[in-house]
Structure formats: structure tokens, C-alpha cells
């Protein structure tokens, strides 16, 4: 392994990963990290939607590469992945998609391990990572890959300069937490609550506890699962998060567009506008935290 992964008690602000762009995204102020399933509901519209996120202020964009058995997703994102698959999305098309995007934010690919593992004749994660790097992807999130099984992928990411983001659940403590945090880079995905993805509008106690538990690890903490409004984002960042990850609330807009047969432009506009709201919320939260006397 060549990357310098998150270590407790490392100097705050030190580079925690391979991607300078991702590090930069978290460096100045809170990061807004939106997620969309690529190819939902089709290639062209999806491109417009992702670009709208960028215009709306995305600091990092998570691109979902659809897998047929997305065991970590709630019904909303599941539905998006099925739409994308039905519209013909494949790993190769995904990389083309990434290459063709006109966005500023660094891209992170979120997918399941089997697609990474199977990408080439030569099984193992390396070919996928190589291709991802070539397509301009700067990081990976793999929800079904536990730290224990991640070393081959970690190595490939280090070789090609990608970050490997891990998810930390409210129940992740002790040794397991160390094991994960010794392998994470770029940012850690803090799961706001137990369960799968899906938009909700309260802030969970579990989030605060998770952030407390992670305080000593030198890596940006992005909180996700269920964030749906600017206010919501504000409270989470005020609570100590370095960024917010938003998926289902955005996917809901895409789904609504499909259901009501809205124009690509109309949907893109709504995505951009919710993005702006979320980003501003996060910034308000950050400001509040800076003012608070006990902020670290």
C-alpha cells in the first residue's frame, strides 16, 4: 500500500488519500456530495442531471454504477438502478459516461464488488480501477466490501491514485472501526442511521454519536443516509460533519420526472435547485459551528 490512510492522532489537515481533488473538496468548508444512479432513466438525461448537480454546487459527485443485486440500497435507489439497467447501463458505458461529463467536481464511483471484480477476463479488481482512473474517476465506494476483504482493491486504488471510501455505521465500533479507518482514504462515509438508503427528515442521535467516535481519525467525515433538505444539511454540518452525502432525495426527483413524464430540463432544474439548497444549508451549518465556542 502506498497511500497514507486515515490514522488516529495524525496531524489534522494532512492529506488523507490519493486524490488531491477530493482532498481539496473537503479542505475549504463543508463538502456537498450528491449521488445519482448513472443512466437513470437514460444515458442522455442522466448526463444532464449529473451536470445539474455540478452547477448546483457539488464538491464531489458520487456516480452509482448499477448492479443487479444492490443489497445496501433502499427502494428509492434500487428503483433508479433498475431503471438504469433496463436502459442498458454497463460498466463500459459508465466509464464513457464519466469521460463525457462536463463537471468540475471530482467523481467517485459507487458500486458493488462483483462488478469491480469481474471487469476483465483477468479477475480481481485491478483492471476496473485502471479503467476508472483512465475515465477520470477519483474514488470508489463499495458498500458490500468490508475492510477485511478490501486489501486487493485498496492496493489497486493506491496504484492508480484513487481514493477508497468506506462506510461506517452507527454500530461500527472498536476494532472494526480501527480496521476500517486504517484502510479508508478520501473521506469516510458516515451512515447517519441503521438501515438502508432513503430520504428522511430528522437528524438521528446515531449521527452525533458516530461523529464523536470518529473525531480522532484524521479523515473528512461525510454524513449520508436520509438527508433531504437544506435545513437538514445545516443541522448535520453544525453537528460536526465535514460534508453531506445526498442520494435518495435527488433520486426521488428523477423518479418523479419519470412518473410524471417531465422534461429533462425541468428535472435538471429541480436537481440544481435542491443542490443549491443543500449546499447552502451545509454552509450555514459550517458557519454556525465556527461561531460555536466548543467547536473543534
Amino acid at each position: 500500500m502506498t497511500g497514507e490512510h486515515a490514522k488516529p492522532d495524525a496531524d489534522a489537515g494532512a492529506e488523507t488519500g490519493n486524490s488531491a481533488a477530493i482532498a481539496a473538496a473537503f479542505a475549504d468548508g463543508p463538502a456537498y456530495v450528491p449521488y445519482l444512479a448513472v443512466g437513470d432513466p437514460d444515458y442522455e438525461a442522466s448526463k444532464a442531471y449529473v451536470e445539474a448537480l455540478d452547477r448546483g454546487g457539488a464538491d464531489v459527485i458520487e456516480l452509482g454504477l448499477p448492479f443487479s443485486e444492490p443489497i445496501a440500497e433502499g427502494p428509492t435507489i434500487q428503483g433508479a438502478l433498475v431503471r438504469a439497467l433496463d436502459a442498458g447501463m454497463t460498466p463500459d458505458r459508465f466509464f464513457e459516461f464519466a469521460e463525457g461529463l462536463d463537471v468540475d467536481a471530482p467523481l467517485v464511483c459507487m458500486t458493488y464488488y462483483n462488478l469491480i471484480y469481474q471487469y476483465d477476463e483477468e479477475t480481481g479488481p485491478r483492471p476496473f480501477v485502471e479503467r476508472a482512473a483512465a475515465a477520470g474517476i477519483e474514488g470508489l465506494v463499495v458498500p458490500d466490501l468490508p475492510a477485511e476483504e478490501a486489501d486487493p482493491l485498496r492496493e489497486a486504488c493506491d496504484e492508480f491514485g484513487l481514493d477508497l471510501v468506506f462506510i461506517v455505521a452507527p454500530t461500527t465500533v472498536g476494532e472494526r472501526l480501527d480496521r476500517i479507518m486504517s484502510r479508508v482514504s478520501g473521506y469516510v462515509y458516515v451512515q447517519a442511521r441503521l438501515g438502508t438508503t432513503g430520504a428522511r427528515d430528522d437528524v438521528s442521535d446515531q449521527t452525533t454519536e458516530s461523529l464523536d467516535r470518529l473525531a480522532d481519525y484524521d479523515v473528512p467525515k461525510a454524513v449520508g443516509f436520509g438527508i433531504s433538505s437544506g435545513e437538514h444539511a445545516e443541522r448535520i454540518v453544525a453537528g460536526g460533519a465535514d460534508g453531506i452525502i445526498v442520494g435518495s432525495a435527488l433520486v426521488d426527483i428523477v423518479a418523479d420526472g419519470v412518473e410524471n413524464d417531465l422534461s429533462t430540463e425541468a428535472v435538471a432544474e429541480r436537481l440544481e435547485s435542491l443542490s443549491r439548497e443543500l449546499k447552502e444549508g451545509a454552509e450555514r451549518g459550517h458557519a454556525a459551528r465556527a461561531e460555536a465556542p466548543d467547536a473543534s
Partner: protein
Amino acid sequence: MSESDTRTAEEPDTAVPSRRPGRERGRDDGKFGRYGGQYVPEALMPAIEELTDAYERYVLNNEDGFMDEFRERLADFGGRPIPLQRADRLSERYDREIYLKREDLLHGGAHKLNNALGQVLLAKYMGKERIIAETGAGQHGTATAMAAAHLDMPCEIYMGERDINRQRPNVFRMKLNGSEVNPVTAGRGTLKEAISETMRDWATTVETTHYVIGSVVGPHPFPVMVRDFQAVISEEAREQSIEKTGGLPTDVVACAGGGSNTMGSFAAFVDDEDVALHAVEAGGSTLEVDEEAGVAPNSASLYTGAEGVLHGARTKLLQDSDGQIMESHSISSGLDYAGVGPELAYLVDEGRVNPVAVDDDAALEGFHRLSRTEGIIPALETAHAFGFLEEHHEELGERVVVNVSGRGDKDLDAAIEETDKRDIDEAPDMSMFTGGI
């Protein structure tokens, strides 16, 4: 301490059990060579760790007498031991001794209860308050619902909406036993989606809930735990074979879907190197696949699948070149799964298990043959093992044990529909049944 010296002197003769590494495989780390593991969302890891701990304490170390209670309930509620029956007419037909391990006689009509009862009881020992399970054809769901009623545990079963419509009698049986049946509308509404959905439920409810997985699949410790619960099949069969015939069988044959009856039938024989083990998969209509449509018209993941990760484990899978899981197909819905237990994948790679595929036609013929000649109507899953016997008996040794994993009452409609499409010698006159029962 002079007494202990005396004891030590005697120990080598009696106290060292013959090492049976095959039985221990995977128990510690969930790895079977390259296969196995725990490929699950982080949120599930604590549950998996808690379960691993409970598995070690209760199942492996019989803490609080768990295994004693399990065996007693399997006997009293389940009907174990289950006979190993000589099949007189098949023995004559194939000119070798054919023995049937009669799991079709287990309460519920299939081997599934061995596992379901073990896991529901374990959940009780763990202090869980709720059981969830996935089901495809409904066999695992009905077994779990029975075990949950027996042990007074609230139970919810996830089942694809399409499967619900195809398997209404089993849905009704689950409800009769007091279980909720939750329709899964996501995706294509079949077993794969039901498993994913059950994992999602578990991810939100791990603290109170145990997920009773239905085969030797999923993340560690499921594959070893389910195998250990199902191993009672081969433990009994091995003893019964010695008792009845004076020796071990030359061959053991079992059908393989996820592989729980397969591993259950093989476990006690894995270390008996002279016993050949045959895992019979569903060859469906053909072993060719339609890459374009993402459909394999079979579910021969051991025979034709490639290594990959599905539902928490690395194993052999039916997948397209991108790694997307294929829709599998079989005349028997219980074999209709794109994956297989990681231990089987390992044993096949090692050459210890012989993977074979039997197509829909041969399975259906096996169904009719066993019904007509032995008075046992097998499940369509089980029928694949008898298709294998017909096609390959000349390659087998002189004493073959076939696991009759389940009975066919659940399959009467499917048997009518499929028999109608074909011209099968051993089938009865079907004219009055055309169009279903």
C-alpha cells in the same frame, strides 16, 4: 496429581477423535479456499459478528445445551431420524444398490426444516424477538414459519410478488402458521430480490431480529452454520449405511440449488475419500446462456458459473461478462438460484465434489420414474438427482445413496404443466389434468 498421569497414558487410544478436517472447514474464518467471506454492508457487520459469536458458543460448543435441545426438537417435532431406505426396484433397474435418504419425510416435506429449526432456536438463545426470512418457491419460508410457530417467534417472510402468485399454497401455509408474508415488488420479484430485501430489513433491525437464511449461502457464518445444521442428513446416512450394509456407500448423490441439502448430504462423507460425491444442478432447458438478455436458462452455477460475489459471499455464480447476476431458470423453483454455497464451489475446484447438470426433461422423467416405481413422489428439485442416476448409473459404484430432499406435493401443478408439453414414457395418462388441477 499422580492420577492424571495414569489417565494420560490411556488417552491416545480412546480420547483422540479421528480428525475430520472436512467437518471443520470454514468454521473459524468462513473461508473455503478462495470462496466464502463476508461481503455485506457495514451496517450488517455487527449482526454478523454477533451471530458468529452465537454460532461458536451454541452450535460449536453446545453452550446451555443448545445442540441437545436442537437435536431433541428435530427428533420430536421434525421426525428424525429419517430412514435410509433401500429402493428395491431402482436397485434392480440399475444393477447396483440404491438407497434413498428420505428427507421428504421430515416435517414440512423437505430437508429445509433442519436448518430453519436450528436457526430459529438459535435466535431464541440469542434473545432475538423476531425472525425474518426470504423464500423463493416457498419451501424455506414454510419451514421457517413452522419453526417460528413451534417456538413462538413472530416471523415475517419476504417473497417476490411473482413467486407469491406462482406459489399460493405455500403462501397460505405460511400464513396458517402465523407468519406475515411481505411481497417484494422490487426488480423482477423473485428469489434474488427477496434475499436482497430481507438483508435490507435486517440492516435496520439487527438488534431485535435474526435473519434465517435458507441455504448454505450468504456471509459467514451462514454457510458453515447451515451446513452444520443440515449435516444431520449425512451423519445419519453414514451410520445407517454402516448398520444396514456393513460399509460406506460408494457414491452420494444430491441435487444442488443453494446447496444446503447437498452439503448436508456430503458433510459427514467429505473425509471418506473413497465416497464419490455428486452435486446435481438444474441444467434447465440448455446450458447455453443468453448474454444479451442476461438470462441463463439453467441454474448450473457449479457446472458453468464463474467466481464472483453475491449475497455476501464469494462463490461460483451465473453472471454476464460485466458481472451482473443472470436470471436463472429451472423447472424446479427451489433450484432456481444464480449462486451456490461457497464450500461447494471450493469442493468442486478441489475435485472432491463432482458437479453435474441434469436438464428439465431428464428431471421430469426422474419425477415420474420415482413416483411410478417406488411410490415416492419427489420434489422436482429432488427429481434432478434421479435424472442423474438414470443417465450416469453405469459410472457409479455398487452402493449409491441418493438424498430425497423433498416431496413433490407442492409440484403437482408444475408437473402437470410440464408433462403436458412433453412425451414422457413413464407419465400417466394426463388427459383429465390438462389445464391444471
